[in-house]
C-alpha cells in the first residue's frame, strides 16, 4: 500500500501466496508437468480395481460384524506379544536414550561426544523400523527379540533428539545456581538439569510408547513378532472379519493410549 494512487479505481485482489511472480509460474508449470508425467506412467489395471470393489464392500461390511471368537487364541497371543514388545522396547529405549540425549546437547557435552551422539541419532532416524527389522530378523532369527531390538533402536533416535533439543533450550540460570553451590557433575545433572526436562521426558516417553505399539503391529509382517503376523495371515486367507477384529483392537488400544498420554502430559506440564 505504498502508493495509494495506483490502487484507486481498481478492484482489490487477493495477494498471491507466493510473492515472486516468476517463482509462482515456475512452481505451477513444473508441478503440473510432473503431475501429467506421473499420471501417464502410473499403471492402473482398472478392470482389476473394478472387480475388487465387491471385495472392498465385503471388507467394509466385515467391520460391522467383526469376528473376535474363531481365531481368538491367535489374536490374544499376538496382542500380548505386541504389548510386551512395546513395553520392553520403550523401557530399554528410554534408558539408553537419556545418556545419548545428554551427550547430544551442546550446552552439556564437549564437541567430540556431541558429534558421536548426534551421528547415532542421525543413523537411528534415517533407517525405517521395517528395514531394521528385516536385517535384525536375518541376524537374530524370527521372534519378538528382533522386534524388541528394532523398536528400542528406533526409540533411541526419536527420544534422544527431542530430549536433547529440550536440554539445549533449558534455563541456564537454574543449572548455574546448582553449580555455584559446589555440586559435582552428577549432582548438577540430577538437580540442575533433570527437574527442568522431566515433564518433557515423561510426555515424550508416553508418546513413544504409543508409536511403538503402532509400529509393533507391522513388525510381524517381516517375522519380528507381534500381531502383524496374525493380521497378515487373516488377509492372505481373505478372512476379513478376523482382520476387521484385529484392526478394531489396534484402533481401540491406540485411542486408549492417546487418551492416557493426553492425561499424563496434562498432569506433568
Amino acid at each position, binding site marked *: 500500500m505504498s502508493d495509494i494512487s495506483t490502487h484507486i479505481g481498481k478492484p482489490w485482489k487477493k495477494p498471491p501466496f507466493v510473492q515472486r511472480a516468476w517463482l509462482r509460474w515456475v512452481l505451477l508449470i513444473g508441478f503440473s508437468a510432473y503431475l501429467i508425467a506421473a499420471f501417464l506412467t502410473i499403471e492402473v489395471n482398472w478392470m482389476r480395481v473394478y472387480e475388487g470393489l465387491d471385495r472392498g464392500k465385503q471388507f467394509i461390511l466385515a467391520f460391522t460384524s467383526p469376528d473376535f471368537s474363531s481365531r481368538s487364541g491367535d489374536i490374544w497371543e499376538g496382542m500380548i506379544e505386541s504389548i510386551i514388545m512395546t513395553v520392553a522396547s520403550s523401557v530399554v529405549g528410554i534408558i539408553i536414550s537419556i545418556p545419548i540425549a545428554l551427550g547430544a546437547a551442546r550446552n552439556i557435552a564437549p564437541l567430540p561426544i556431541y558429534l558421536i551422539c548426534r551421528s547415532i541419532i542421525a543413523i537411528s532416524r534415517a533407517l525405517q523400523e*521395517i528395514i531394521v527389522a528385516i536385517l535384525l530378523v536375518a541376524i537374530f532369527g524370527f521372534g519378538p527379540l528382533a522386534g524388541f531390538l528394532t523398536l528400542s533402536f528406533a526409540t533411541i533416535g526419536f527420544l534422544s533428539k527431542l530430549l536433547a533439543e529440550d536440554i539445549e533450550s533449558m534455563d541456564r540460570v537454574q543449572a548455574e545456581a546448582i553449580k555455584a553451590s559446589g555440586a559435582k557433575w552428577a549432582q548438577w545433572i540430577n538437580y540442575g538439569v533433570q527437574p527442568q526436562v522431566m515433564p518433557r521426558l515423561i510426555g515424550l516417553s508416553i508418546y513413544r510408547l504409543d508409536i511403538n505399539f503402532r509400529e509393533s503391529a507391522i513388525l510381524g509382517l517381516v517375522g519380528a513378532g507381534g500381531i502383524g503376523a496374525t493380521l497378515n495371515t487373516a488377509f492372505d486367507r481373505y478372512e476379513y472379519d478376523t482382520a476387521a477384529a484385529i484392526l478394531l483392537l489396534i484402533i481401540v488400544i491406540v485411542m486408549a493410549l492417546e487418551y492416557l498420554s493426553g492425561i499424563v502430559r496434562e498432569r506433568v506440564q
Partner: protein
Amino acid sequence: MPVKDLNDQKIWRRRTSRESLMHWVIWLIGVAIFAYCWQKISASTTWFFVWDAPRIADDIWTRATPPKWSYITQLGKPIWDTLNIATLGTIFALIAAVPVAFLAARNTTPSRLVIRPIALLIIVSTRSINSLIWALLLIAIIGPGVFAGVMAIAIRSIGFCAKLLYEAIEEIDETQVEAITATGASRWQIMAYGIVPQVLPAFAGIAVFRWDINIRESTVLGLVGAGGIGLQLSSSLNVLAWPQVSLILLVILAAVIISEWVSAKVRGAII
C-alpha cells in the same frame, strides 16, 4: 519444604518420606512389569541363534559389500514409482483432509454433536493404522501395484493432515473472521477470505512435512507388493542377493535424506 531432623540439625530433602515411598512403589511396579516382559521375550527366543548372531552379521556384511553398483540402472523406474506413490498419495490425502479438518475444527464445524465426532473418528482410525497395513488391505481388495500404494499412503495421511490442519484452524485469529463477516460476506466468502488465508501457511507446511514422511513410508510399501523400490528390495531379499540389497538400502537412505532436506528448505521458506 521437606526437612529431615538429624541430631537437631535440619537437613534439606528433595521429597517428603511419603513422596519417596510412593516413588519407590511406582519404580518397583515398573521394574516388575519390565522383568515380566523380558522373561516372555526371552522365553520365545532361540538363544542359540542369538549367540550365533555376531558370526551371521559378519557373514551378511561380507556378502553385502561391496554393493552391486551396476544394478542401479534397473532402479530408475522403481524410484520414479516411489516418488509418484508419495506425491500423489499426499495430494489425494490433502484433498480428502481439507473437508475433514473443517468439519472437525470447533469453530467451523456445522454440528458439534453429530458431524464433529464422525470427523474425529475418521482422523483417529486412519491415523492409528500403519500404511503397510493399509497397503496389505488394499492389495487384497484392488490387487497389487502402484495404485494400491498411492491409496494406502493417501488413506494413512488423511488423519495426520486433518489433525494438524484442524488444530491450525482452531487457532486462527477470530477478529479477522469477524471483520469479514461485518462486510456482509456469505459463509463461503468468510471461509475464502477470513479463514483460508490464515491457515494457508500451516497447510503448505503440513503438506511438505507429510510428503517427506510419505517418501519414507513409500520406500518400504513394496515389501507387501504395493510398488516402488520396496518391491525390488523384497525380491532381492528373497533370492538372498545381498549386494543388491545393500545398494537398494543406500538408495533408500539417499532418498530419505534428500526428501528431508527438501522439506526442511521449503518449510524454512514458508515460515
